[in-house]
């Protein structure tokens, strides 16, 4: 099931990357898009609230006036308000399913997963409250069924549904309460969204500008083409027979009527509980390797690992035995064993004058010393005539092991950003290989969030530790193609070898 979902998302990722480029790919920014849609709903909501009348007779007529009387602005605002909320609902759902399919919900990531579940309830409550305010046939349907649904709970003293018996039992104060809820619940949602992203470094809450502009333009076109309209006004003296429903948010409502309130509560609460415990359910996924370990002897307190950790698992404290110095500390509850910190450590350099290579911080599963030994061993075994390539990759992206050959040595690790830039310098300077290639997850969709971004920045000298200027850049390639791009990476390796071969020939010819 999960594998099938992953294949589906990989296919969608490739499709969207072709049309949008990886930087604008909406599949990599579902969370950020949800934030964007939230702000669109908030801003348009403020505008609509200015003209909204909180009374039985005024609610429907004021919305109609906004929609028809000022269709060019108020009508568009209303359509944005509705379509952005629906788009947010879909993005949030896709975000949840995608994170599940890509195995990004367990271990230290449980917090983001679990804190997202109440947000689903708050999102639905916010949207349903909005539909209620319009006070048309759909609102009447929602009002009666919501009241009956809540009346099932033993906490209700007076049945809420008694407020909607007929037109004479409805009060203007009810609309004031609804407006209060329709502002309060989205604010609670915003607070929840803040908590949801609290434990991740540099959480992306703004989508790429081009993507944001595109989705706003698309929404404008849709709003002008099919503006959001009310249905006939509510009339509690007449029963609803047939009603148009927003199926994005109101899909549980027919169940309340056909199954009954108790069963619907059981289904939705049960589903929420099930989603909540998913991170702790038995799974076939590989067990997390031991967390990063700091070696105080080799930690100079530079803080580069702190800056690069995607999960805020690293902090600094006073050095154990060097007065006035700092030292890194790893929080084992937050560490995901990605090894990005080891790649960031300036001590992870094979050029250091030490008897045995060691570093300030590393993951026990693949110590920097072992990575160096593995690199040297694998490259020494290459015997083909074509240019030798050292291909590093990650366990979650392109499957580099499939590309191993007599001229290509491969090493897969938890995250490609575990490779310190000094390693590339070392491999090329020592003549162990003619070229170095690094593959991994798709661009903008790193399994450990920021691995390929950090590596790109290290190689373009925007982030420490940098790839030194003396390294011939044409002999180093970074390719973020993901698991689905393994075959393409193979073709790129061949093309890289052909390029290096051609460059060698040119050098031999021209000197």
């Amino acid at each position: 099931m999960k594998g099938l979902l992953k294949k589906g998302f990989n296919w969608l990722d490739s499709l969207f990357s072709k049309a949008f480029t990886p930087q604008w790919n909406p599949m990599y920014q579902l969370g950020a898009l949800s934030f964007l849609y939230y702000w669109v709903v908030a801003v348009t909501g403020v505008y609509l609230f200015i003209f909204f009348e909180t009374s039985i007779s005024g609610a429907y007529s004021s919305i109609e006036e906004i929609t028809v009387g000022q269709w060019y602005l108020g009508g568009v605002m209303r359509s944005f308000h509705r379509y952005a909320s629906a788009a947010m609902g879909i993005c949030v759902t896709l975000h949840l399913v995608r994170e599940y399919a890509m195995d990004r919900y367990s271990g230290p990531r449980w917090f983001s997963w679990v804190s997202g579940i109440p947000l689903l309830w708050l999102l639905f409550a916010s949207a349903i409250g909005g539909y209620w305010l319009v006070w048309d046939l759909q609102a009447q349907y929602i009002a009666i069924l919501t009241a009956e649904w809540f009346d099932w709970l033993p906490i209700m003293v007076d049945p809420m549904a008694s407020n909607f018996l007929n037109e004479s039992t409805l009060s203007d104060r009810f609309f004031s309460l609804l407006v209060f809820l329709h502002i309060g619940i989205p604010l609670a949602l915003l607070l929840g969204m803040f908590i949801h992203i609290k434990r991740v470094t540099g959480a992306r809450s703004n989508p790429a500008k081009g993507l944001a502009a595109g989705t706003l333009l698309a929404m404008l076109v849709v709003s002008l083409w099919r503006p959001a309209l009310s249905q006939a006004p509510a009339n509690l003296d007449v029963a609803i027979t047939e009603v148009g429903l927003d199926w994005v948010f109101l899909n549980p409502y027919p169940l309340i009527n056909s199954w009954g309130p108790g069963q619907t509560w059981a289904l939705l609460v049960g589903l929420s509980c099930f989603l909540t415990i998913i991170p702790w359910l038995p799974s076939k996924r590989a067990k997390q390797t031991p967390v990063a370990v700091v070696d105080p002897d080799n930690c100079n307190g530079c803080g580069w690992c702190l800056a690069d950790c995607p999960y805020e698992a690293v902090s600094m404290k006073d050095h154990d035995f060097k007065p006035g110095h700092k030292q890194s500390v790893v929080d084992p509850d937050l560490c995901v064993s990605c090894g990005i910190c080891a790649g960031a450590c300036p001590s992870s350099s094979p050029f250091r004058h030490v008897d045995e290579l060691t570093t300030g911080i590393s993951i026990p599963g693949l110590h920097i010393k072992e990575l160096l030994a593995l690199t040297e061993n694998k490259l020494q075994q290459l015997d083909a005539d074509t240019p030798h390539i050292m291909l590093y990759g990650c366990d979650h992206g392109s499957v580099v092991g499939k590309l191993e050959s007599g001229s290509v040595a491969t090493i897969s690790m938890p995250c490609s950003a575990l490779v310190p830039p000094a390693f590339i310098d070392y491999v090329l300077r020592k003549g162990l290989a003619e070229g170095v290639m690094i593959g991994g997850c798709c661009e903008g969709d790193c399994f450990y969030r920021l691995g390929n971004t950090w590596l790109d920045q290290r190689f373009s000298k925007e982030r420490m530790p940098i790839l030194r200027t003396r390294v011939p850049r044409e002999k180093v390639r970074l390719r973020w193609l993901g698991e689905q791009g393994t075959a393409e990476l193979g073709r790129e390796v061949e093309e890289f070898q052909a390029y290096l071969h051609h460059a060698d020939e040119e050098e031999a010819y021209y000197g």
Partner: protein
Amino acid sequence: MDKARRYLGQALLYGLFFLPIVYFTHLPTHRHLAQDLAVLKIAVRHAGQIIGECTPLGGAEYDKLAPNMKRPETCPRERHPLQVELILDGDTLYRDTVPASGLHSDGVSSMYQRFAIPAGAHHLTLLMNDDEASQGYNWRLEQDIELQPAQVMVASFKEGFRLQ
């Protein structure tokens, strides 16, 4: 050309994303109630009779009370639950006991039910007992009613049953 194709692809994908949103915001319509049905709602909010009677406070009990709490008699607070029954054309649609609200069962009893019933002529009987000490029902309404399709009829209680 590549750029143009990419923008065209984006337009198509935006369309594929927003078209279902536009469609599913109101379609397909949902049939909530068959066309030949009407709705009968019953809502009662009424305090049952107090269980027990007031008893005079004896001299010793009276003396124990604080000066500002002195009173000639003490009265129980607990109220009887309501027995409510709805009979339509001889069939019992609803029969239940509605407890008094509050931690000490001293508040009002409230109930609400909604029924979808065939439109047309019916004989309606509403019964309620708010004092378990008395036998049978001490509140009653019997009436012939005529319901149009989709009509909402409300049976409520305020010093007796009434239909709206």
